[in-house]
């Protein structure tokens, strides 16, 4: 129990640290939203009034503590820009981001595992070299380039024109497929190179271990070795990697896709909040993201420990 308690304590300290830094940067030093809420010809007095209403005049620690309190009680307030309750904004946008990123994430990892396995089992041969070469190539293409190119090739009359250009008018599985395909393809394309290389390395390392050689000596077939031994024993690093990359890919990666494809998810909402300085939304997202990141890290480590009793 003790190590678990320590982990939780560390997690708490992390959350405090993240909220402090994020608060410092995004809220304390962030843009003054007053100027997006005034019209033409605002008087100095009107500006001052809104400035005060938004709470900019209060001292740092009071604002920070208020923030922590609102996080703890989940009393997140309403957006300064549209008046919508932050809770509702989150409930509206988070499922969209998840529905957007999860297929690409899963597919990218599954394909990466498959390709990595294929390359590792033919280590040194042309198949391995081809896959490795393509992986390096994949790692060298900018996400931005991929997004632009895919949109032109798949969604416009200059290319195949099969999918909508942007948006997220999802009302059922059919329309869901329509809107999620291009972003998913872009995401898979970009992450495949990294994933393949990683899994290939893991499988190669695993294949070189004694118990594999033993199995081979005992006459196990190639497929049997692959599936029953290599893959199974690599589950630990695979799961660890998947879990550690969730925050990176799903939360951070959604920003670009959402802003380019106009998908009303949490990444876009956060970015808009940052650039306009909409504090309630910002604080909620940053705080909850921090908690999510930390929770995932803690979970991953616990999972790691569970799956691999050799780790001390």
């Amino acid at each position, binding site marked *: 129990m003790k190590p678990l308690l320590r982990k939780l304590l560390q997690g708490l300290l992390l959350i405090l640290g*993240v909220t402090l830094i994020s608060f410092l940067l995004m809220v304390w030093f962030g843009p003054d939203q007053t100027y997006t809420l005034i019209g033409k010809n605002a008087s100095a007095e009107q500006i001052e009034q809104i400035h005060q209403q938004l709470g900019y005049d209060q001292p740092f620690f009071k604002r920070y503590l208020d923030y922590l309190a609102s996080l703890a009680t989940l009393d997140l307030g309403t957006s300064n820009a549209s008046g919508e309750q932050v809770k509702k904004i989150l409930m509206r946008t988070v499922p969209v981001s998840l529905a957007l990123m999860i297929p690409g994430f899963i597919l990218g990892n599954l394909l990466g595992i498959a390709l990595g396995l294929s390359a590792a089992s033919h280590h040194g041969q042309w198949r391995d070299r081809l896959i490795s070469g393509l992986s390096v190539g994949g790692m*060298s293409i900018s996400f931005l*380039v991929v997004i632009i190119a895919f949109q032109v090739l798949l969604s416009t009359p200059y290319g195949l024109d099969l999918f909508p250009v942007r948006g997220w008018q999802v009302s059922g599985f059919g329309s869901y497929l329509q809107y999620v395909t291009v972003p998913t393809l872009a995401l898979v394309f970009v992450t495949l190179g990294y994933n393949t290389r990683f899994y290939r390395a893991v499988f190669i390392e695993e294949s070189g271990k004694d118990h594999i050689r033993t199995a081979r000596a005992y006459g196990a077939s190639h497929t049997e070795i692959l599936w029953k031994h290599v893959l199974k024993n690599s589950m630990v690093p695979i799961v660890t990697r998947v879990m550690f990359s969730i925050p990176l890919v799903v939360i951070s990666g959604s*920003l670009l896709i959402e802003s380019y494809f106009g998908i009303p998810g949490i990444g876009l909402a956060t970015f808009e909040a940052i650039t306009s300085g909409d504090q309630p939304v910002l604080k909620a997202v940053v705080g909850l*993201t921090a908690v999510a990141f930390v929770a995932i890290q803690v979970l991953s480590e616990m999972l790691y420990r569970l799956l691999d009793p050799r780790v001390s």
Partner: protein
Amino acid sequence: MGGRTDILGKLKSDRAGLAGFLIVTFFFLIALGVWLGWLGQGWSDASGGRWESPGSAHWFGTNILGQDIFQRAVYSVRTAFEIGLVVAVFSTLLGAVLGALAGWYSGSWVDATVMWMKGVLDSIPFYLFVAALAFALHGQPWAMHLAMIATFWTTTGRLVRAEVMKIKSMDYVRSARSIGLHDSLILARHVLPNTSHILLVQATIAFVAAIKTEVILSFLGLGVQDGVSWGLMLAESTQEVLAGHFANFIAASGLLFLLLIGFNLLADALQDALDPRQAAL
């Protein structure tokens, strides 16, 4: 660890790595040329007509302002190297120092603090961190570099820390300690140099990450503010591509791809040569 000649030998025989090295050197020479004022100086001159096709006067044609795309692409090499080098060097250094301290004093509050900082920085979504930093620094040109340095050091830090913890228990270190040499001297003279294989590889990886990040940041308007970079060219190209003008897009993405693949191949070769046991990431 093998001797120097072993490593060089490995590098030389790795054809992909050699190709990578050549590509990187080629680009570096271009960057040098721009920096010294011999190449790409006409990047901001609006000397041509609007959207001219590639021709003898403008090898890749011109953009909407009549600026020479080829010159702009070449000048961007310098921008890329500036950003890449600054971020790679400083983030690796920072990671080395902090990682070494954490590893050396592992288990103590120093270690705990460094790991805490690492956890905190890893937990903030990157692009949001950069955007916030850009605002906090009121659009200073260094905001982007600082943000990248502040977040890229963590991987290096983690690896150096692990390595230092291993080195700590080695004989030559033990004997240096028993003589009574000061900690910082031991770290500087004996420990850190023996992490150089990690640092070199991480630096190349950081370079790649820095350039890729700059592209996206410039596209979002948070990156390069004055001058030109591939990110800015790509941002320009999103408007032009649908009017049927692809020169900007092809020039920027092509050169970007070449440099990145060069660095990636080089990074791979270095990793294979210097520390084949390190799991590829």
